[in-house]
């Protein structure tokens, strides 16, 4: 590594260390413990599930290793696709929009050093999560197939080039795109393409109904099955070479060619990427400095909201209009609606695909049970959506807080506007998925009423929790709204919401059970009893507290913000 490259990378390393020290000084230990615990639990779950699957495969003669190899190949192929998408987006920030670029480009830094430093930065930022995810997977393979102490080195040897190749391709794709479009337009374009691609992938994966593959009647005979398993899925992809290297090491036969292919391809890609960088970066960087002119006439939302907003104070009205305009003009924000649509389609598809509908007569008990437990699932979906759209609301005001704090704006009006701008669409969505699900399940009017009442209360609470935690853990420095929910505060919000959902389900279990019993025994349901009413009242109180308390705490926190 040349002196210039270490100089370019130095500030990044020192910044990371300083941030760690600051975190430690500001009581970041609790945060580290929570994150560590959640990460460990996740690792253990992935490891545990895979260990059981692989242990079962190992016991199956002939097909076992083939299945294990296929599974690894699929996992690595998924990693490769995710890495490619995330590198394309990250490369735009690190190569063209980063704040240190003006300094670096103006300084006498060699172009190759700049390329390697920025490539490394891109790779690190977009790959760390995939690398962490890979640890329990490879650990399970190593332990089940007795990989021994050399196995981690083999994994390292195949994993590094697997990270390098998508980083080079991603950076090169971005480089070409920036040369065609202005960088700020490219960012919009990329966020839409990435999210649409991710959504489409998930949707396709779900719609092909992978659960059907587990049905033995799908295969004509064993030979067909083995033939399919033996054929490489994608012989020219690095993920296939990596799989063959790992499985070759674990169960044989070992072939060094795959490893050589991996490393030589990674090396060749870096060289090609550098050549492309030398040719296109100067013009691309210049283009990235160009602003994206956009003239807009913003009367649509003003007019559309006029019938409702005329009852509001001028500050609240303009706040709501402003928030909606900003949302629909920022591609990193509105493009997430694509994911939302995918989520809803998959959700309803899953309900439709439940095996409840395979028999002739669906048992009443199961339908009611699914309808009831569906509340938890719907609540979780709403929490995930609130994390995306409501949680970042306070953070997004960050840099403009000077304006809000120096004006006579009552922060309660701000919080009120943010709350209802987030809650109203969430309520509509909650009602749609609950009513549709219950209609699909042919649930009884009682279950429909319980579901609707509960989901309304839950939505009010979830939106308040999202806003409250968003104010407690603001991310004022981020430029991308989509990154805000993945912060520590987002995690705490999700954990709290899951706890709330659990409490509500447990509380409602007893009146719902009483209803099921009464219906099964063909008795009249006695509603006016403490056993029936008290748990329902408790749900109202719990949701009421979960709505009021976070908003109050959020307001206090916002009043204490200093800029």
């Amino acid at each position, binding site marked *: 590594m040349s002196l210039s490259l270490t100089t370019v990378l130095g500030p990044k390393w020192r910044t990371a260390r300083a941030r760690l020290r600051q975190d430690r000084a500001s009581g970041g230990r609790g945060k580290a413990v929570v994150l560590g615990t959640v990460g460990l639990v996740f690792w253990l779950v992935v490891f545990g599930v895979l260990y059981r699957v692989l242990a079962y495969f190992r016991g199956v003669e002939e097909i076992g290793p083939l299945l294990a190899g296929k599974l690894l190949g699929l996992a690595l192929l998924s990693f490769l696709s995710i890495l490619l998408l995330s590198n394309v987006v990250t490369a735009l920030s690190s190569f063209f929009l980063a704040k240190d670029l003006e300094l670096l480009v103006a300084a006498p830094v060699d172009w190759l050093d700049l390329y390697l430093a920025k490539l490394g930065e891109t790779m690190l930022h977009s790959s760390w999560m995939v690398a962490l995810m890979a640890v329990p997977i490879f650990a399970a393979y190593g332990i089940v197939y007795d990989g021994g102490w050399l196995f981690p080195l083999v994994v390292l040897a195949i994993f590094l080039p697997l990270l390098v190749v998508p980083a080079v391709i991603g950076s090169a794709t971005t480089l070409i795109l920036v040369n065609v479009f202005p960088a700020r337009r490219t960012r919009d374009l990329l966020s839409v393409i990435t999210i649409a691609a991710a959504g489409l992938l998930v949707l396709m994966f779900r719609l092909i109904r992978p659960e059907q593959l587990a049905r033995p009647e799908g295969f004509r005979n064993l030979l067909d099955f083995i033939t399919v398993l033996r054929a490489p899925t994608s012989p020219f992809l690095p993920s296939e070479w990596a799989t063959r290297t790992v499985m070759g090491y674990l169960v044989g036969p070992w072939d060094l060619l795959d490893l050589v292919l991996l490393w030589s391809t990674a090396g060749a890609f870096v060289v090609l990427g550098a050549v492309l960088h030398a040719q296109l970066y100067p013009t691309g960087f210049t283009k990235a400095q160009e602003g994206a002119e*956009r003239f807009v006439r913003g009367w649509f939302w003003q007019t559309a909201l006029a019938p409702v907003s005329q009852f509001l104070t001028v500050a609240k009205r303009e706040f709501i209009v402003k928030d909606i305009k900003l949302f629909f003009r920022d591609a990193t924000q509105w493009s997430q609606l694509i994911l939302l649509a995918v989520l809803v389609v998959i959700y309803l598809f899953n309900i439709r695909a439940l095996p409840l509908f395979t028999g002739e007569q669906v048992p009443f008990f199961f339908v009611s049970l699914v309808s009831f437990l569906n509340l938890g699932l719907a609540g979780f979906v709403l929490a995930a959506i609130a994390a995306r759209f409501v949680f970042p609301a306070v953070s997004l005001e960050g840099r403009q807080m*000077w304006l*809000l704090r120096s004006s006579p704006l009552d922060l309660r009006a701000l919080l009120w506007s943010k709350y209802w701008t987030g809650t109203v669409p969430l309520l509509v969505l909650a009602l749609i998925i609950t009513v549709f699900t219950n209609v699909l399940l042919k649930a009884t009017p009682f279950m429909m009423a319980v579901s609707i009442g509960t989901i309304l209360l839950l939505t009010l609470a979830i939106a308040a929790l999202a806003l409250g935690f968003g104010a407690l853990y603001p991310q004022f420095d981020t430029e991308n709204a989509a990154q805000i929910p993945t912060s520590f505060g987002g995690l705490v919000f999700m954990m709290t919401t899951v706890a709330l959902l659990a409490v509500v389900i447990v509380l409602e279990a007893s009146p719902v059970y009483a209803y099921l019993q009464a219906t099964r025994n063909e008795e009249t349901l006695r509603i006016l009893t403490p056993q029936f009413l008290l748990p329902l009242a408790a749900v109202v109180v719990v949701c009421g507290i979960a709505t009021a308390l976070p908003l109050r705490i959020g307001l206090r926190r916002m009043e204490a913000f200093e800029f």
Partner: protein
Amino acid sequence: MIRLEGLTKRFGTFTAVNGIDLHVPRGELFGFLGPNGAGKTTTLRMIAGILRPTAGRITLGGVDLIREPMKAKAILGFIPDRPFIYEKLTGGEFLRFVAALYGQDGDKIEKRIGELLEVFELTQWRDELVEAYSHGMRQKLIISSALIHRPELIVVDEPMVGLDPKGARLLKDIFKEFAARGGTILMSTHTLEVAEAMCDRIAIIQNGAIAARGTMAELRQQTSSGNASLEDLFLRLTGGSTARELAAILDG
């Protein structure tokens, strides 16, 4: 109009502003000078209600800022040193939004938006997103936003940064006219010629405390500086680089 009593701000163990007492009466243009990190911006941000003082009192137009923030802020216009604005709003929309924060809307505001954009030569950019504005254009838009609700006092941090000569001249004229009509301005600046030419009185702040204050004549008297310029006074009070130090840097 602006009264500070024992104003103090601490960040952890560091004292940024240390017990400042100051009174700026109605109709005065007051200059706030000092080296980098002296506590100017912190003081101005406390007056604007963005930072909470650790101790002391701020009164704007006779209203206590801590006790009655809404009432006090209603008469204030604040212009920060860094022009952060909603990138995805147009200039016109931003001004309409700021007016709404002060509870104002309707035809009068639309007319005022048009006037302000005209004065600052932003009319042709009215419907363009702020993300495409230059630094100077953003600065002009923020100055317009500080004037939209017809404030009684303006607190401004480094107003000339990013403005072209025409814009700087326009701003000077606006400030002079504003003060002549009974408005009050507290302005921090590093452009000493501007401060010397425009300000009725000046305070020089160092290490969080006021080192000297008064008219130019009073400052010269306090420092026994004869006919010295504001630049000389400033360097004398805050400690400037000697010629020998400068030569050492340039010679390497």
